[in-house]
């Protein structure tokens, strides 16, 4: 069984936000109303986060990073879910069963990365959004928590395709949308259990770090520091 993980190279990242858009469109994430967005209810599974500012002006650089779900190996969200709506799959993906979620938001309160988003209400979506929904992904109703699933629908598609072709899933068959669209290939995705995969190699780099690793959540989305 593979263990999917992701390495984001901040040295390559240009903060173009293509991953943010791709994630939003691929997963049919709701566009909330103006009021809701301004009240902090905008829904982004992938978001640019400015962690800190390195250096003194003018030799200052923001440490900006694309932040999706860290897909922790020891996720604190699944521990507290009272109904098993969020759970860890054998391949390491922390997924969310939307029809099972009761909307208690305990997982949101316990996520140290604040990555989960809640459907506070359901607004009528712009027509152009609805028409370009990804048909493989369900649209979540109001009152449930949702999160990045490493585009699990793509894994489903890829494994179905591989099954039809009587072969095993190969590296590169399945990548999340953010990985696919990244213009500078800053995001590497693959099997962390495979010692030869790109992502494993990248994770051994001296620049590798994980967000809030000290909490023991063992994030499977990690970063490569920018070279200065």
């Amino acid at each position, binding site marked *: 069984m593979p263990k999917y993980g992701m390495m984001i190279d901040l*040295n390559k990242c*240009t*903060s*173009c*936000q*293509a991953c943010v*858009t*791709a994630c*939003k*469109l691929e997963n*049919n994430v709701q*566009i909330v109303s*103006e009021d809701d967005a*301004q009240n*902090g209810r*905008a829904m*982004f599974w992938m*978001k*640019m*986060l*400015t962690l800190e*500012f390195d250096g003194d*002006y*003018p*030799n*200052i*650089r*923001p440490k*900006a990073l694309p932040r999706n779900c860290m897909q922790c190996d020891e996720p604190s969200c699944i521990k507290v879910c009272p109904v098993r709506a969020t759970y860890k799959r054998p391949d390491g993906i922390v997924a969310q069963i*939307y*029809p099972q979620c009761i909307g208690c938001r305990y997982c949101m309160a316990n996520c140290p990365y604040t990555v989960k988003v809640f459907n506070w209400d*359901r607004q009528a*979506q*712009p*027509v*152009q*959004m*609805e*028409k*370009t*929904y*990804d*048909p*493989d992904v*369900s*649209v979540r*109703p*109001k009152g449930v928590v949702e999160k990045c699933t490493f585009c699990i*629908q793509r894994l*489903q*598609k890829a494994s*179905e*395709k591989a099954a039809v072709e009587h072969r095993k899933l190969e590296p590169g068959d399945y990548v999340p949308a953010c990985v*696919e*669209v990244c*213009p*500078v*290939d800053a995001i590497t995705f693959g099997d962390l259990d495979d010692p030869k995969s790109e992502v494993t190699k990248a994770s051994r780099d001296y620049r590798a770090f994980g967000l809030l690793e000290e909490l023991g959540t063992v994030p499977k989305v990690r970063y490569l520091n920018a*070279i*200065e």
Partner: protein
Amino acid sequence: MHISRRNFVKLLGGSLAGFAVGGLGEALIKIPNAVVPILYKGPRIETWKITTCAKCPGHCGLRVRMIDDLPVQVFGNPLSPINAGGICPMGLTSIQNLYHPDRLTSPMRKVNGKFQKVSYHEAYGILSKALQDNSGEKTAFVAQAESDFMGRLIHDFTQSLKSEKVAIDRFGSKTVLPYRSAADDYPDFIDFSRCDLIINFGSQLTEISESPLFFSRAVNDLRSKRGSIVTFSPKLTPSAFKSKPWIPVLPEFYEDVALGLACVILNDGTYDKGFVQKNFNDFGSFRQLILEDYSPADVEKKTGVPSKDIIATAREFASATSPVAYFDESILQSSNGTRNAYAVLALNALRGFSGYGKLQTREIPGDDKTKSDAASASWNTSRLIGDADLKVLLIYRSNFIFNSPNSEDLRKAISNIPLVVSFSPFIDETTELANLIIPDHDDFEKFDAMSSTVTGAPVVSVQRPVVKPFYATTHTGDVLISLMHDLNLSKDLPYGNYVDYLRANLKPVYKHGKGMLMAQKKPTGLEKSLHEAGWQLTSYSDFDEFWDQMLKYGGWWDPFPKVEQFSPTLSLSASQLTGKGSASSEKKTHDADSLTLNIFSKNLDYKGNMLRNAALTEQFGVERDVYYDTWIEINPNTAKKLSVGDRTKVRVQTRRGSFVATAIHNPTVVPSNIDVPFGLGHKFTEKKYGINPIDYADYVFDEATGTPSLSETSVKIE
């Protein structure tokens, strides 16, 4: 290929169960509207089609995911040499414009101030009659055409109308102007295979440039090869993140900085003596002028840029093997824009333009011609003001009312023109003023082609309709060509419509047989040597097959072009450089105490046209956590002085008015600047989000190109 049909049955089951359980009047799982009819009728066949993005000058290859012949998603084409599978937010959401409810569904005519639907024949009749009556200087054409073929057609069209009043806004076109007037040639690309240093004057390489996606990769490659980038810009944009160092300076001082750098190099004597002797006319007087007036200390006094930075950067520039001092259109966004460009040209000349490359042979017909023609044209939209002769104004996709600080005057000028025809597929600020709209197809419904040399290789990308036009829209190219036929404007028209026109223009590419279609990765090894021996990389028996293959694969490119060093002949006079005698020569000096409004652009919006898009509008301020509203960025130290708290509402006062925005502390902002993003404040959305900062900017333009200055407005914060 059947895809996830099972998922759909599951989805349907889930939604039925949802209705049964009754989730408070809402299904547990809601099936997308677009999917429901297809779910019942369609076989759910997934196909992919290749096309090209025309949202910005980048021309990225696109892969469109079609479900039952309806496009639903867009991704990058991995075989395109420009984007190699990557795609930017604008490209990703471009498909939303296809389904946008605000799209114009038929030609419109303004009657008593209100638009009414008319038939194409009626609209065409009005236009053709008006042009018959008002040929020559009574007709003007304003276009924003990222397709150079379209640009060229428009140019041909106005030429045959005998009108000089044409402004074709392509990203490169304005940049060509300084080259045209100071040199005899224009570089095709930065030669990243050799270049090891880029001194970047204000260009947002990875965001808004000739090809943001290509530059993103190229910049990373350059850095991984230990090359470096020095950026002079008024804001630490994501492009400037990659540079070391970033030197904050306002665009109006680029000129002084560039000449200051030149001064150091001249002093050190480290310039390319052979080149300047041969190709730099009147180098002696140039040298004298620079050495006298632009010593680093003088420049520091004037611009606030530390002289040690100037000296260090200049020495780096002098010692690099193939340095490039790069500028693009953004350098012109200043009252002395063209002079900035001249200064950078002069700086480049000192190192013999050694980082720039030039294609030896050009098989692409459109590209060069448009650039040169645009260069010779001196007409720009500001000339609309006070032009009483004008009887017909044609507007193709340009939203210059939104982009110009003098929009009020332009509005007045346009209201005096009897017939204003817009070809925009949407109502926007400019189209609102038109009397007649003949909407163009959406990008996913039409044929077009673009050529580009930014990658160092000639690339022709083809845009093809992935879906039949939804509405009664017409390709503007077809309109222009049939006008030319009907008005007997051009004697010899070998083409009946725009597709014929494209085919005719692509014949040379077919004929010379070099290069390859975007059907495979860049060949290496045996294929490369075979190609060099004269083998064709992609086989096609006749032109029709070539054309079909072009449409299928999305374009053609030459992976092994013949490239030469760019070496133009320069003739820069002292007055060109210093602007003596011109109105803007009375230069301000850098003043650290006054605040300047610096309008910056983001890669989510190109020329203020993309924020019709719901997803992009929401995402516009996401990294600052501001939604649907304009914000200003302010240095925390400045904010402390003005006692402006983080994320508090402030009133920003300029000479032209004031607006309220959320102030956000950002330590990367230049202490004397107030940064405000450009793109919001459209009136065409249902609700107006934020403000258009350019409405508050002073009327300051670069004289030669008519580019508005975006950072010379003094501002007060309350």
